[in-house]
């Protein structure tokens, strides 16, 4: 699974802001931390605001804060704002497959896709914050 850059930025931003526990962070500060383009990040932040995960405060000293429910929001909820989570072309087990090769391959790929989805649906932002705390790294 290779996540698109926007998806990764969305995950970085929402986790960074959830970690701040209601505190406000500037887009520039987040872009600086992850060494990403502020223009690209701003587009991603707008999507997260529209989805109700963040609130934006405009003007001098403005920024973003996390307003979602970290115990109920999963990695899947965030990723799906930016891209579908499935193996393209094999979303459903009942899709007609012309050849025995396609049909056989579909069984294997659907299994992989379902495992991936179950994992992403089970990891909440709160659980991610615990993992981040236990693994350490640059804050």
């Amino acid at each position: 699974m290779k996540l698109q850059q926007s998806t990764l930025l969305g995950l970085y931003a929402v986790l960074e802001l959830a970690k701040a526990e209601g505190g406000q962070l500037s887009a520039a500060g987040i872009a600086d931390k992850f060494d990403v383009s502020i223009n690209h990040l701003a587009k991603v932040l707008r999507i997260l605001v529209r989805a109700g995960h963040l609130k934006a405060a405009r003007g001098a000293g403005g920024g973003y804060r996390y307003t979602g429910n970290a115990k109920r929001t999963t990695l899947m909820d965030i990723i799906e704002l930016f891209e579908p989570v499935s193996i393209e072309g094999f979303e459903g087990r009942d899709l007609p497959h012309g050849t025995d090769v396609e049909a056989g391959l579909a069984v294997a790929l659907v299994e992989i896709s379902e495992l991936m989805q179950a994992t992403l649906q089970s990891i909440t932002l709160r659980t991610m914050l615990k993992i981040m705390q236990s693994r350490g790294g640059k804050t």
Partner: protein
Amino acid sequence: MIESEFTETPLDIRIRKAVVSDLPAITTFDERSDKDVNPGYWQEMFARYGDDHDKQLFLVCENGDEIVGFIIGEVRDWEFGSRPCGWVFALGVRPDVRLGGVATQLYAAICAFFKEAGVDKVRTMVARQNNDFHSFFRSQGMMAGPYIQLEKDL
């Protein structure tokens, strides 16, 4: 006292070993109870895990004088070649007190039992579609282990 997202009243909970008279309450909120569960299932579970055993444990959670949760597990030795470890194989919390910390306290209690029994790993298995249970065990720090469960129609 802990807060539940679903009740205004703070929970006053206590974890203890199950007794036979707890079983009727447990069957009212065990999610498997409305399916094809053998009527003698819980009696058998109690006989196997409810008494004093070195390697099996059946705990309940009381909120005041009501049973609001249960957990069952055991230490299994060298299963599939793995070192002895604790297995949690049944867990239930009454729906109206979920997200109040009941399962967390039951899980902590059974992990303490496993540790006391001399094992350093706890495992469980959850249905892929059971997102609530999957999320709960992950929130306790559990991750995918080195084994994959496989099955086949016979």
